């Protein structure tokens, strides 16, 4: 994986984000960027603020300071439904599929948008079910009856229905069996081929290094280090510094 040319206009720019949860200062000035079609990893120990960064980009958390720019325009403070419609999709850490809705209905929440013709919807669904045959089989089943891995697939599939320019993926492999982990890897590759950018928060270092072009390292609520994935090995001292016990 080669680093993309940094002259491309970045898709998402996060500048000096500060957020609070009650009185706790969670993000202490996070800055990063993701270019179009790039896969960018965000690594760090538990609790450093990786998920909060994604949530802030998605508008689920309002920052007290700092900006989020999407294609050059500020989206800071916009409500999440507007952000989703602009082309940013979010796959949260605990999947959070709609358990009482069927698989089809879950997908429809992303599919039923303005300006999408019925034909296009069928096309998208067709392609999706090719990638996720298991979901096709279970399409009329309630989301809550799916296994953990299938729910993760559904969460990603649902996000893809928004035809996003970037997907914010929060720990997709958490709690999954190794076979499912490699499926996730396949999905990330597929999305990359489709020119969908990904901001990937993960604890699984090998997967992140293999799938990403660039990696950010967070510690204590801020980005402390940044490198091209190709320059890092799994046992790099940097990895131990930011992720080691």
């Amino acid at each position, binding site marked *: 994986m080669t680093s993309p040319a940094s002259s491309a206009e970045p898709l998402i720019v996060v500048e000096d984000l500060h957020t609070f949860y009650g009185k706790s200062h969670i993000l202490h000035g996070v800055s990063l960027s993701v270019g179009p079609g790039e896969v960018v990893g965000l690594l760090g120990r538990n609790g450093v603020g990786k998920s909060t960064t994604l949530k802030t980009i998605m508008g*689920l958390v309002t920052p007290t300071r700092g900006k989020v720019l999407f294609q050059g325009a500020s989206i800071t403070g916009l409500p999440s439904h507007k952000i*989703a419609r602009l082309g940013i*999709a979010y796959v*949260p850490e605990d999947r*959070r599929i*709609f358990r009482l809705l069927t698989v089809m209905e879950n997908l429809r*929440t992303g599919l039923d948008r303005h300006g999408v013709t019925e034909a296009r919807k069928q096309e998208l669904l067709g392609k999706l079910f090719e990638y996720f045959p298991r979901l096709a089989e279970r399409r009329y089943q309630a989301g809550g009856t799916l296994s953990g891995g299938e729910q993760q697939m559904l969460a990603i599939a649902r996000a893809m229905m928004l035809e996003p320019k970037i997907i914010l993926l929060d720990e997709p492999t958490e709690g999954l069996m190794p076979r499912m982990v490699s499926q996730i890897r396949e999905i990330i590759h597929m999305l990359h081929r489709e020119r969908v950018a990904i901001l990937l928060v993960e604890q699984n270092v090998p997967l992140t290094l293999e799938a990403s072009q660039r990696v950010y390292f967070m510690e204590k609520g801020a980005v402390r280090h940044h490198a091209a994935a190709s320059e890092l090995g799994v046992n790099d001292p940097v990895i131990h510094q930011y992720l080691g016990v």
Partner: protein
Amino acid sequence: MGLFADIPWDIIAIQTVNGIVTGMILALVASGLTLIFGIMDVVNFAHGELFMLGAYIGVIVLGASGSFWIALVVSTLTIALLGAALQITTLRPLLGRDPLTTILATFGLSLVLQNYALWQFGPVARKIQEPVSGHFKLFYLEYPWYRLVIALLSAAIITGLYLFLKYGRYGVWIRATTQDRVMAQAMGIPVPWVHTGVFAIGAGMAAASGVLFGPLVGVNHAMGLDWVLKAFIVVVVGGMGNLGGSILAAIFISLLEAYASIWVSPSQAIIVSSVVLILTLLFRPTGLFVPTPK
């Protein structure tokens, strides 16, 4: 007392029918209330006033157009719009705050709306002519057809609501928002508008109930109070946010009250529903008709 020997079966049968009829209207009112609560966590104190204003608009449109059905439709749409406007102005700013503030805000609304009706229409009750006259023989009583019409229409409206929620595109939005408001919004669903829409639907249903119920009693500014109280009992007994439960509870409570009024005066019949409420709170606080206690 030879109570069992003297059971007036025909009166009981009549009261059963009456109970079901009233129960269906109560179900219509309560389902709007429980829908609003289930989806928005808002206890709409002004629901009774929406019912009352719906009835008044029914009176006016009936007078202007001569058609009950036009009155029903116009009233439903008008109050739905009023509901949307009220939600946008007074409830949206309260999103995310302590849910008790919405009780206060809707209580304030109910005072304003009720007094407005008093000022606008005066204290004298108005009448809505029933659209379907004529009676049929129910035992020894001449039973009005119209009451059956009410029950059927209410059932139809509730069924329509159920189908809309289950199959409509916006039904999916509403159900997704109920389950996980945050993720629904992250999927691009405009949650604030879903809330407004749901409130409007609830308001419209209350208005329709008001128009349907109008011919049975006089339409006056205070008619909403009794209904909202009973509707609250129904919603708690049926399970907050549980549509099916509310309908069953509405019929259950109305039947009990109908039977009770064989022996006591109707105003005391509310004690019956209150006893049911107390028992429910003691033994099954999540609701009598909730499938599995949580």
